[in-house]
């Protein structure tokens, strides 16, 4: 009997010890995969990164205050008319060799045509396009001002997520202002970014994605 009970104590103790070890030092950990079926990040602090919150903060704390110092549209168009390459050098934002060049500018123009998602504005003797309706693609908003660097974010995925969040913000908070209020002859005031093409030939216009836009009096 005592033999059985000591055997029971040994087995029971071993099992209890294993159970405690299992709880304190589990041999594996169950984690949820993200929406891509990928393991979440490994503890560098970005697991809780909220691109929308970052975009809101960047917009309020950095972008809004920069808008009044964006390049005057009149100066930019004059420079482009003289020479696109030197306008790029004078007013362009570019991050690294081979990267796209962006203009960050603001001014007024009169709507001369609306076609699909674009309004064409007559401004300072030239024509520019203004994107007036979703969808907004790409990184023009994120990169166009030169105010946000990839090195301010935990990594590329987060940097790209911020781009998508900023585009969404433009769609919901900037473009919505224009809903049904644009027509030929209406004067608009805007600040926006434009990805600069290699050349502006065959009547192609610069196209601005607006960061702020309003109907001018």
């Amino acid at each position, binding site marked *: 009997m005592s033999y059985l009970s000591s055997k029971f104590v040994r087995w029971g103790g071993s099992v209890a010890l294993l159970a405690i070890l299992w709880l304190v030092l589990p041999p594996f950990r169950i984690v949820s995969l993200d929406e*891509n*079926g*990928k*393991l979440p*990040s*490994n503890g*560098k602090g*970005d697991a809780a990164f909220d691109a929308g919150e970052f975009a809101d903060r960047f917009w309020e704390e950095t972008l809004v205050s920069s808008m009044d110092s964006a390049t005057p549209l009149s100066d930019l168009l004059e420079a482009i008319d003289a020479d696109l390459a030197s306008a790029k050098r004078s007013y362009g934002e570019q*991050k*690294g*060799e*081979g*990267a*796209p060049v962006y203009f960050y500018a603001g001014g007024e123009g009169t709507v001369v045509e609306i076609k699909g998602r674009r309004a064409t504005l007559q401004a300072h003797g030239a024509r520019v396009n203004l994107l007036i309706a*979703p*969808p907004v*693609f*790409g*990184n023009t908003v994120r990169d166009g001002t030169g105010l946000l*660097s*990839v*090195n301010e974010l*935990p*990594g*590329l*995925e987060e*940097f*790209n997520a911020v*781009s*998508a969040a900023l*585009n969404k913000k433009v769609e919901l908070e900037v473009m919505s202002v224009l809903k049904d209020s644009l027509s030929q002859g209406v004067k608009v005031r805007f600040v926006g970014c434009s990805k600069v093409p290699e050349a502006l030939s065959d009547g192609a216009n610069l196209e601005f994605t607006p960061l702020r836009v309003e109907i001018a009096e």
Partner: protein
Amino acid sequence: MNTQKLPVGAWLVAICSAIFLLAGCGKGEDGEAGSDSTGPKRMAVVVSTLNNPWFVVLAETARDRAIELGYEATIFDSQNDPSKESVHFDNLIASGYDAVLFNCTDAEGSIANVRRAKKADIPVFCMDREITANDVAVSQILSDNYSGCVALGEYFVETVGESGEYAELLGIIADTNTWNRSKGFHSVVDRFPGLKMVAQQSADFDRAKALEVMESILQANPNIKAVFCGNDAMAMGAYQALLAAGKAKQVKVFGFDGADDVVRSIAEGKITATGMQFPKRMARTSAESAHAYINGKRDFDQRTLVAVELVTKENVSKFGDFGRK
């Protein structure tokens, strides 16, 4: 005299151990890079795979630039295997290399290798593939995959149209490039509800796997109009499958990388478009960064993005040899 012979295996172990110990002798106790003796300094080029011409160009350009800068340079092929990559780091740390030009196999799994190198005072410079840590590599020269695939997505909608079924071949799941490309593409295409992705499978950036995966996708989804592939090797594999199924003209193929065979195929009308990365530019910049670091520079941006350009039949004549002509 009666002598006892050691078994061959024991001799091999002894010789290997001796080589390993001698190789480690170049390293000072304080972990300082140990090539400050008489010979030239050395750079290691650790590349994820040499089974893909794009990575061969990346690795060989890095090696050649290092040699031009006066270093001895050796390429280590990880064969897409994190354990092989880890062994390469063991060896290059023991051998006291002065810098590592690194193209990782796993964005997270490879961090430990870079950390070990850093601990041994061997600076690591990532090329093309990101590691998801900001405090271990000296710098990371990376393709702007997301922007490149936004451009591809826009061209996809322009050429395929705003409705129809399509498939996607993903790269290696653990590589952030896979997801940056996929997300860039979907940031555009998903805005068109008429475009329906009927299959999304990984082919590990591998041509042969892409052929197999595409064959099975075609059996289940005979009406697809296009396939978006996360790299050019997979695009060529997918094209082969389409050719075998007699659907090469019906299904548009989109790749990413700018590999020479795909650029030629775009000119011949076989592949619709790709994103031109610039492996030579990334490799040279990494080697030059390592050279600058060895000569005392310390203020490096953690990440530098290299632009990707859309290559289509309209502009294909401007591209070739893994870059702009």
